[in-house]
């Protein structure tokens, strides 16, 4: 079976037309004065999905989350949760909870009281509250810190209190606004897996807002790429990476090399793209545009091979000069300058410790890639 990326997914409700989406944004627009934060946006999120809203700052992702939580109402359009229109329902009556970017812990309450706050508002009985709080603190491994105040905790501990507090009420949907932004890299990576386990174990729907693409790729079932209040693409991390829908998405997520050219030929055997300098790229990926259209051929650095000799078949190969090398340990980055002046970024995995005849600066080198290695972008 062939698939994009290296993961086979059994969870794909979005591919099943029978499944009704759980959260629906229907032509939602949000304006603040003259500024349009969200522009006629439609989006569906499914039950038990881990959904990421990814975009640069100011793309409207936090506004979407705040509208879902009930802090802002859409200017136009509607938001449905489990079939119910959320308009006019105040935040304290919505079955969603949010984990705030600043954690927003109550400074005058202990860890225990923070976690119990939402349960108290529900009018839960005291023994049950105590039991649930203990359970939550155990889940986030903070049992021995129950009596501390937030200022007596480290950043990572605060983050876990915020998490425990927001899932204590067992909300239908948990919203996470840049939840890991304040943590250092190592802690962030650990916490990412913890969050994924939590989501799996509790069976909740998670909607996360982040500007960190690695974070989104690691955790999410699907990612929505947002730009200027509009959705650029919604897809699984592998689809976003391997089959980006536009030049914007392709260059926003990960590194990419773009070759601008015109679609020269297009038949059952594949597609040919002719670049300005006459080079022809043969690709197996399709494009439903007529010949002569301006297109871009986009290819990820790791899918380009670099060697000191021309490839045997001579297909999709170009000669250049090694311009820069960065040795990163697990892999090496080569920037190769082609004859037409274009810089091509390639990465090769350092699978063995010893390399015969390694490339060095200013060496002549050949880049080459397979016909299925890249995608053709029309937008």
């Amino acid at each position, binding site marked *: 079976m062939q698939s994009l990326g290296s993961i086979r997914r059994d969870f794909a409700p979005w591919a099943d037309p029978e499944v009704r989406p759980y959260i629906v944004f229907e032509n939602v627009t949000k304006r603040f004065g003259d500024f349009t934060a969200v522009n006629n946006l439609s989006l569906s999120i499914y039950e038990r999905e881990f959904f990421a809203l990814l975009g640069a700052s100011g793309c409207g992702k936090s506004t979407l989350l705040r509208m879902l939580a009930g802090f802002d109402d859409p200017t136009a359009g509607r938001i449905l949760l489990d079939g119910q229109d959320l308009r006019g329902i105040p935040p*304290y009556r919505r079955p969603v909870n949010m984990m705030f*970017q600043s954690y*927003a812990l109550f*400074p005058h309450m202990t860890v225990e009281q923070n976690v119990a706050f*939402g349960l108290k508002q529900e009018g839960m009985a005291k023994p049950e509250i105590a039991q649930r709080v203990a359970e939550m603190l155990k889940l986030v491994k903070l049992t021995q810190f129950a009596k501390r105040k937030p*200022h007596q905790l480290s950043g990572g501990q605060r983050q876990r209190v915020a998490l425990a507090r*927001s899932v204590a009420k067992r909300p239908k949907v948990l919203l996470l606004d840049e939840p890991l932004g304040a943590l250092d890299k190592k802690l962030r990576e650990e916490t990412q897996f913890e969050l994924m386990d939590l989501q799996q174990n509790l069976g909740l729907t998670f909607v996360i807002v982040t500007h960190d693409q690695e974070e989104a790729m690691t955790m999410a079932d699907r990612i929505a790429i947002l730009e200027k209040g509009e959705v650029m693409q919604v897809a699984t991390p592998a689809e976003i990476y391997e089959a980006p829908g536009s030049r914007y998405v392709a260059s926003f997520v990960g590194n990419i090399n773009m070759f601008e050219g015109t679609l020269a030929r297009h038949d059952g055997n594949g597609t040919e793209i002719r670049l300005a300098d006459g080079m022809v790229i043969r690709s197996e990926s399709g494009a439903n545009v007529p010949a002569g259209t301006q297109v871009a051929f986009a290819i990820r650095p790791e899918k380009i091979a670099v060697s000191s000799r021309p490839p045997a078949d001579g297909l999709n190969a170009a000669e250049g000069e090694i311009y820069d090398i960065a040795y990163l340990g697990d892999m090496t980055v080569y920037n190769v300058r082609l004859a037409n002046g274009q810089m091509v970024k390639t990465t090769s995995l350092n699978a063995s410790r010893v390399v015969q005849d390694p490339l060095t600066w200013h060496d002549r080198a050949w880049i080459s890639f397979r016909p299925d290695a890249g995608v053709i972008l029309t937008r």
Partner: protein
Amino acid sequence: MSGKWSRFNIVSIVLGFAFLYLPIVILVLFSFNASKLVTVWGGFSIKWYYSLFQNQGLIDAAWVTLRVGFISATAATVLGTLAALALTRYTRFRGRVLFSGMVFAPLVMPEVITGLSLLLLFVAIGLDRGFLTVTLAHITFSMCFVAVVVQSRLLTFDRSIEEAAMDLGATPVRTFFQITLPVILPAIVSGWMLAFTLSLDDLVIASFTSGPGATTLPMKIYSQVRLGVTPEINAACTLLIALVAIGVIAASIVNKRREVQRLRDEQAAQRT
């Protein structure tokens, strides 16, 4: 910064402190004077303190002052806090600039004018001058000080904790009483203390708005001084100074301890 005392530093400190405290020191010293003449030292005595507590007029005035201070500070705190909330939270309402200007105007208004205008108002509406009018006047002018103190706390207040409370199911009213109020309480308390102090030592506005039977301590002292300074007054002032000094020192010690504790906690948290 070097820890050495240069001659210049010593001189400036001595001069500065002398300027600030010499009058007070002399006042305190002469309250223990045995002689009735205020400026001639006649030996140590505490008889003026004794006679102070026999002076029913002064004691009554002190009692009035405390009651006015307590009631006016409490009312001013409620009003000032509400004004501060309105000013920081609803930043887009019509006439906000006018409103904030009007709330803070009494801060810079000469007291004579505030006093006079209040007097005119009370006369116009036929309110008999007395305890009630003094209290109302004090509420009026100390409210804006409370508003300033509370507003400065609210400006650094993280609104997301209120949103978090509502997100967790608390209605706006509950959010206010369970989250907002406890967090800004220190500012409200210090606003109250400021209002109380302002009311305690106000002379000008009280003179305008007070009537028979509602003489405050500053008014009483002032009227007695006009007849000649007695060591009794010195004793009364010394007691006031002691009271204020104890209050200020206690407050700063508590604050300092809390700060140290907080720092220690934070360091402990970073280690775990």
